[in-house]
């Protein structure tokens, strides 16, 4: 008896939808084993992770708050990945966006500036993120440098730049020497949607981004160009589509969305610029993009699910003393299974019983 991986005649659309669920299922099984090894009861650990956060309003809002940057970044990344451009540096674009927007918040602090401050901050964040993403994109187009390496390395540059600013020039004089800017003025803060809650305007912006992404990919010629250039580069060139231009475009859009997500995070839930504003949103968004099948609606669902793991991880740490790093392990295992299950879209397993005696 043999287990054979066999090519399907046509890609299976059913599996394309089901494969993320298979991946999640396999991840849960693997996590249960891991919990058991850690000496925790797998059932209650998984309940703490995935059920408990869904039971109170605070956690539900918090899931939406965490999903906001994940979804915004992942929509941008999905455009890059569809076009075969590998932007791994969304985390850096997120941080640079946060820094650029914060500049205006810091400069206008206490000046009584009008309500124009927040919109301009968002634009600054998006522009800075886009420009920052164009560095690896240009290096790829002009010199053939691997965008995977350059975009990843620029994450650490952005991280240290932010660190320098909040420890040096932008440090709050009244902040007891903590590395942070002063709390932003109300005109430089993202409005809260529910009185007394944490849900903010960013969630609406994320939904708009999802809708825009769906229209771009599904209805426009640019979206078609992005998909062809990734799926069949030679056919794309034959179609008259310029792959270099599309690398620049998708990197710019993805950088802009990551940058805007960065400034929304700082001007929203955090309220000031400080190191550690991101628990790795830019990297987790890579998982979100793939778990969501590089599809805008899928990304929205996947973003909410990954946000759940962040909240669940915190709750499990409090309730069951499970280390917070287990969340990262979980996300890593999930990405692994998502990519592995994708092969089932084009292939299927087949059991072959001995039909031929070997002489």
């Amino acid at each position, binding site marked *: 008896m043999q287990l054979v991986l066999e090519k399907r005649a*046509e890609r299976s659309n059913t599996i394309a939808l089901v494969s993320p669920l298979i991946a999640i299922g396999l991840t849960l099984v693997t996590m249960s084993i891991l919990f058991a090894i850690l000496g925790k009861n797998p059932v209650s650990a998984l309940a703490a992770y995935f059920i408990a956060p869904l039971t109170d309003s605070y956690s539900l809002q918090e899931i939406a708050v965490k999903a906001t940057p994940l979804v915004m970044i992942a929509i941008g990344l999905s455009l890059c990945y569809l076009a075969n451009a590998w932007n791994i540096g969304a985390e850096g674009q997120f941080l640079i966006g946060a820094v650029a927007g914060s500049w205006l918040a810091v400069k206008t602090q206490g000046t009584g500036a009008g309500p124009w401050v927040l919109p301009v901050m968002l634009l600054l964040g998006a522009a800075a993120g886009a420009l920052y993403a164009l560095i690896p994109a240009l290096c790829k187009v002009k010199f053939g440098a691997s965008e995977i390496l350059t975009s990843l390395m620029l994450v650490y540059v952005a991280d240290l730049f932010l660190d320098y600013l909040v420890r040096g020039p932008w440090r709050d004089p009244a902040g007891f020497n903590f590395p942070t800017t002063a709390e932003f003025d109300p005109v430089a803060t993202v409005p809260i949607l529910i009185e007394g809650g944490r849900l903010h305007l960013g969630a609406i912006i994320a939904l708009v981004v999802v809708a825009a992404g769906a229209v771009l990919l599904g209805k426009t*010629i640019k979206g078609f160009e992005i998909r062809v250039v990734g*799926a069949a580069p030679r*056919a794309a060139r*034959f*179609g*008259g589509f310029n792959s270099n231009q599309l690398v620049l475009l998708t990197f710019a859009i993805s950088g802009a969305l990551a940058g805007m997500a960065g400034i929304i995070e700082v001007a929203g839930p955090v309220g000031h610029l400080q190191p550690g504003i991101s628990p790795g949103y830019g990297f987790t968004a890579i998982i979100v993009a793939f778990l969501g099948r590089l599809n805008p609606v899928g990304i929205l669902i996947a973003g909410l699910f990954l946000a759940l793991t962040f909240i669940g991880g915190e709750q499990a740490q409090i309730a069951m003393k499970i280390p917070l790093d287990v969340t990262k392990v979980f996300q890593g295992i999930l990405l692994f299974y998502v990519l592995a299950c994708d092969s089932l879209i084009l292939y299927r397993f087949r059991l072959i019983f001995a*039909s031929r005696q070997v002489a």
Partner: protein
Amino acid sequence: MLDSTPAALHTGATPLLQTIGLTKRYGDFLANENLDIEIWPQQIHALLGENGAGKSTLVKTVYGLIQPSDGEMRWLGEKMVLSGPSEARARGIGMVFQHFSLFDNLTVAENVALGLAGKESFKDMSARLEQVSNVYGLPLDPRREVWQLSVGERQRIEIVRALMQNPKFLILDEPTAVLTPQEADQLFVVLERLKAEGRAILYISHKLEEVKRLCDTATILRGGKKVSTCNPRAETAASLARMMVGADIKQVKAPASRQTTVPRLVVNDLGLEPDDPHGVRLEHISFELKGGEILGIAGVAGNGQDELFAALSGERLAKDPGTVVIEGIAAGHLSITKRRKLGAAFVPEERLGHGTAPRMKLSENALLTGHAASGMVQHGFVNTAATLKTVDRATEAFDVRKAKRDPEAASLSGGNLQKFIVGREILRNPAVLVVSQPTWGVDAGAAAVIRQALLDLAAAGAAVLVTSQDLDELAEIADRIAVMFHGHLSEPLKTADASREKLGLLMGGSSLEPTEAAHAVGA
């Protein structure tokens, strides 16, 4: 080794190789179904069939590259199970593939050494290589690097490499596809000699005249099944074709009168540097193509046809705009999209991955080349109804068979996809159509439809440029034929004057007699 007595290969009443009920299944698809074939020594046995008939599957099984799902093979009457090609070679089965497996940057001798097992020293091996190539009239310089050699010479390496193992049974997969008519004649001499030595040869081809001339036996496959084993010399080309196709092939009809009009595609002294170091440089290519005319470009693959297609389509741009003139407008510097807007249309050789995005729907593939010049895009938004309409029109006009209205390109058979691609371009009413290998790997029915469509398009006033390695195809549809060799394009000959001998000489790089050339120009 080579002088081991050929007579010993005769074994009386036992065939050298016999397959009994040989079957190969891929999922639900039967690539080979219940094949019973006998190969006898001292015979050239043709294996005939259309693309996808199961020829390659069969020879790969015999050569040990794939395992049969059912049935068995017998070698000299004894059951044979092959776990890989090295076992096949050890028994005396050799194979020359259609696509060569040679390293461009290594010498001939190094390439041969890589393919041989055994403890022979490199020096001895080189000496034996020279000896074998001389004995069989396949001259090769062991010290030359492969990238410097012509396609015919590369094939010689593959043949010599197979002969150095002194095979009892040699399989050749479409060996003449890459040869000029003269080179093919030389190959036939070699094959006759191998046969006289008592070896068996399995000769895969779809060129019927060749098979009738060379082969003693022919097995015809269709849809994975054996249709017949016959004596090809007792058959006509038409009867063999009928067995291959399973139906009579429609004859292509050239329209009675065709008026040539103004020049619609003019190429002036076009030169193009190659993309990669071993590529072909286009040099001083000039021709003029009028409306109502079909110009054929013949030549052995790899002599610059791909580069010429890229230069004409705009996938590669020329420095001087005047080198390519479409409809009277200098277009050498224009992108493919702008050239399409001038009325040009292009059909590349490679259907999947170049002409279409394989995993995208037909409607999206209609958009791929139609986005510039038709109503498919409005203000940046795609008009899906318009793209679907193109699919429906191409389906109807060219009889594209498919499982549903708008399937993925990759799910269509080669012939149907090619009909769709050609249809997609012709429906745009192009003034100039540049098409490369229009019927490569396409079933005979679809090939006839496509050739007829090209003739009709020219009759309607378009200028059509057809690149093909199939001289019969060019003779059937082209008004004039030019030959590409090493990046140069010969002066076009009128089809009536373009004998196989003349074309063969040009394909091999010789020039015609001055008088003939002058005649051709004056004609």
